[in-house]
């Protein structure tokens, strides 16, 4: 792993980072057009790769929440060109570590002694990096442990980052700056939640207990006595990261088994717990030798309100999708059609959402679904492109949809992307809890 060069913390420094990235991207475009003058064959792929590289460099230096935002972007595989996705996914488990002395300092702050005194063995060099922390190997009473340590100052910098990103976000989504507040707040709260390791510990223990009967799914054991709001200690789990696992070209049977465990995990959380692990990126899952999925991060949990839960699953119901009156009522309830919309506009969106949901809820409409088919993810991406090209949509500057959608969409989109990269065929139980669990 590369060693950390700097953690810019002040707002001004972060701002100047953004500006330098902006300048670099500008330069990349310039280079691109100069090259293109001489070589008309040159594709935009190279340009995108250059841009992604520079953005990634900047982000990985900035650490913390911006990196998290990059991860969120990388979740929506369909929305971004492939090069961006590749680079940003890298962000998911490769960031420079903090120094050994700082790790020791954080331990002294939390436990009053050095890590070597808390555990029997402690490796001062980080094994993995997470976006707001890093993972160390330790041993206590003959058991191998994973100790996750949070970077200092993360919570503070999130707030200033969000303020910085906000105007960009409004521009990016082409909406009015003021209307975006409740969405930004949703993201900010979730990000701040993630900096609270005590909360993560509690969520991890709770969800792993509730989901312990799901087939081929496993969780690490948590050790509250060695955990604080800056440190989480859990059992060390052997296995391969999901992405590396896919690269080993596993059998179709194994692919299906893993995909099925993930699917059941999400459906069960949705219906039985009404809260879910909202961070389904490959870095959060490890595959054991026996083909079990191990879930290793519970920082981001989305709680569904009763109302949102009911409305959301109504949208997924084909019967309601075909009953325009009931469908429109649900859309209004979820703020996807706004009270200020004219009848024309309401009809336009009703039709648009119906078409979109027919695609996105397709796996729920049948008993079995084959995610190995690229066509499905492609059709989702193409429909996104089509919506983006509509004049009515481009001109509309009212942000739509309940703020709960941000993390719920991200979760489902992330899940679909995972399943599609695993190339698996699964039993969907029409989106309900499988029989053996109910």
């Amino acid at each position, binding site marked *: 792993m590369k060693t*950390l060069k700097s953690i810019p*913390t002040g707002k001004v420094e972060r701002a100047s980072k953004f500006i330098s990235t902006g300048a670099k991207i500008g330069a990349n475009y310039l280079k691109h057009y100069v090259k293109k003058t001489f070589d008309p064959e040159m594709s935009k792929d190279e340009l995108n790769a250059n841009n992604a590289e520079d953005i990634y460099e900047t982000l990985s230096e900035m650490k913390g929440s911006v990196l998290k935002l990059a991860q969120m972007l990388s979740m929506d595989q369909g929305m971004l060109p492939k090069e961006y996705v590749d680079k940003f996914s890298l962000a998911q488990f490769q960031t420079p570590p903090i120094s*050994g*002395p*700082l790790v020791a300092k954080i331990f002294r702050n939390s436990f009053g002694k050095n890590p070597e005194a808390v555990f029997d063995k402690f490796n*001062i060099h980080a094994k993995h990096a997470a976006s707001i922390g890093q993972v160390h190997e330790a041993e206590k009473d003959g058991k191998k442990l994973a100790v996750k340590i949070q970077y*200092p100052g993360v919570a503070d910098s999130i707030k200033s980052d969000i303020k910085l990103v906000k105007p960009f976000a409004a521009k990016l989504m082409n909406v009015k700056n003021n209307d975006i507040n409740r969405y930004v707040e949703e993201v900010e709260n979730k990000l701040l939640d993630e900096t609270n390791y005590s909360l993560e510990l509690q969520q991890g223990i709770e969800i792993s207990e509730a989901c312990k009967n799901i087939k081929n799914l496993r969780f690490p054991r948590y050790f509250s006595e060695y955990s604080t709001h800056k440190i989480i200690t859990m059992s060390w789990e052997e296995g391969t990261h999901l992405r590396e696992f896919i690269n080993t070209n596993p059998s179709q049977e194994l692919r299906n088994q893993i995909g099925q465990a993930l699917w059941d995990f999400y459906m069960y959380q949705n219906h039985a717990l009404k809260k879910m692990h909202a961070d389904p990126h490959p870095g959060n899952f490890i595959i054991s030798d026996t083909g079990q999925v191990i879930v290793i991060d519970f920082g981001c949990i989305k709680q569904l309100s009763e109302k949102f839960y009911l409305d959301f699953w109504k949208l997924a119901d084909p019967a309601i999708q075909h009953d325009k009156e009931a469908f429109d009522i649900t859309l209004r309830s979820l703020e996807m059609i706004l009270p200020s919309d004219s009848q024309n506009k309401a009809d336009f969106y009703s039709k648009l959402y119906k078409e979109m949901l027919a695609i996105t809820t397709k796996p729920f409409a049948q008993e079995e679904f084959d995610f190995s088919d690229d066509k499905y993810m492609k059709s989702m991406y193409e429909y996104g492109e089509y919506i983006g090209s509509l004049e009515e949509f481009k001109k509309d500057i009212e942000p739509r949809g309940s703020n709960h959608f941000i993390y719920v969409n991200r979760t489902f989109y992330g899940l679909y992307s995972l399943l599609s990269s695993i190339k698996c065929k699964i039993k969907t139980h029409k989106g309900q809890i499988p029989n053996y669990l109910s």
Partner: protein
Amino acid sequence: MENSDIIKKYIVYTLDKGEKPANEYIFAKYLKISEAKFYTFYPSLSVLEQDLWQNTITTTLARLHADSNYTNYSSREKLLSFYYTYIEELNEHRSFYKELLRADVNLLKNIPSHFKKTKTHYVAFANEILTKAKSTGEIKTRTFIDSKYADLLFVQFLFVLRYWYKDDSIGFEQTDAAIEKAVNLSFDLMNSNVIDSVFDFAKFMIR
């Protein structure tokens, strides 16, 4: 009574009264000794403060050498753990040290006279780790320039102190981040080719 007792009393006085003793007479009275007797320990309160600051460095170094990991650290890590330990020391009586520093907020512009001994000790420590770093190739040997490294690092020390003085984050974790950043920057600069290219270019242009 020994010099160390007098320093302890000086800390207690300042913490309790919320300000430093205004002169030697007041402090001697507090110690219940004559002013003349006080001068047998220290010629002035300012010299006492010099010793006090020097103690913070020596205690820190003693703590570091007592840690079994310390010897195996690279020079960069040694400097990092020096700062972290130093700040931990100061945090024991943050309000006292803040009171002492109140008059010297412009630490970086004019180095206060009571930091003289601190500087000597710090520079000796810095030279020790820098010599080691040169022998292991952790930093580059640069004739003329590298003899100034320790003095430059003392400026970094003052920067850390000033940052800590102004830090109002919980647990002063922003100071931790500042230390990490400052030390990494200095070691990267002492090792990078960028600096050499800059000097090379400058020499070429001046010729």
